[in-house]
């Protein structure tokens, strides 16, 4: 079994949830999303994010607006649509259930006294 691949897939699986969650707090600019994800060590290369953002936008979970920047190219500011908010809360529920169940499984069995 390719452990590296499984690890990467696990991370990839939660990436959508994380991106939606980062955007839910406030309108954010692509580089802010990148920074948060990198801080959390969820993103290895930045290139992974762009196809994901475009897909979420095409699925109308995200919307964005352009803003001119004094230093550099114009920036895209993303925010969640109503559909995106629904998707986020559904993903969050799943995540909570999943972590609970997995943690329960992973915990060393307590010997009952």
């Amino acid at each position: 079994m390719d452990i590296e691949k499984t690890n990467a897939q696990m991370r990839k699986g939660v990436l959508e949830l994380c991106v939606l969650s980062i955007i839910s707090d406030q309108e954010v600019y692509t580089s802010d999303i990148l920074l948060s994800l990198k801080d959390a060590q969820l993103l290895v290369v930045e290139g992974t994010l762009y196809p994901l953002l475009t897909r979420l936008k095409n699925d109308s979970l995200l919307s964005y607006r352009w803003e001119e920047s004094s230093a550099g190219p114009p920036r895209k500011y993303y925010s969640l649509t109503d559909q995106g908010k629904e998707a986020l809360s559904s993903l969050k529920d799943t995540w909570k259930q999943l972590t609970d169940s997995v943690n329960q499984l992973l915990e060393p069995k307590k010997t009952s006294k």
Partner: protein
Amino acid sequence: MNKVLDINIKGIIFHLDEDAFNKLNTYLDEINKHFSHKKGCDEIISDIENRLAELFQQKLSDKKQVITLEDVDEVISIMGHPSDFDDDSEDDNSTISSNRPKVKKRLFRNIDERFLGGVCSGLGAYLNIDPTWVRIIFLLALFLAGGSVIVYIVLWIVIPPARTVSEKLEMQGDPVTISNIEKAFKEEMSEIKDKLEDLTEKAKESFKKKK
């Protein structure tokens, strides 16, 4: 002394030395190729270019006006190579399936849907036409020349029957993969189940009649 070349990324002009320029050009080509068949490719590429421009700008200062090969290498390592992106969108699957190599079809006798020996049925599967047409042609040939009986018998002898699941898949031209074998197996099982249910129904009926 290296030659300095200009590149325009998203309307911003950058000066790159020659090595850096070549490297960046290859990289951009790589990205373009990777996304060219994807939905929303223009947007993804434009987003990436935006970010590249931003990263390059951070590399420049009043004292440093030219982007070097090291800068390009660093930026590429931040952005990653297309082979690392490997996004999981549904479009991916569609491109995989459309790019999937055609499996070589093989001629088998289709003994599951046979009239006599499954020759016409197998030919139909091989030529992708309704086996009934093949049968009609054979019958017509029988009335016209009569040689079709011999042809049929020879084919019956020469063409192997499709017995195993993988042979059946090859007959239909489906690739022999685990999931396809599983699918075929399930179909077969449900057929058997239907037949069994049929039989039990009949048995019950005849039992009732006897009573």
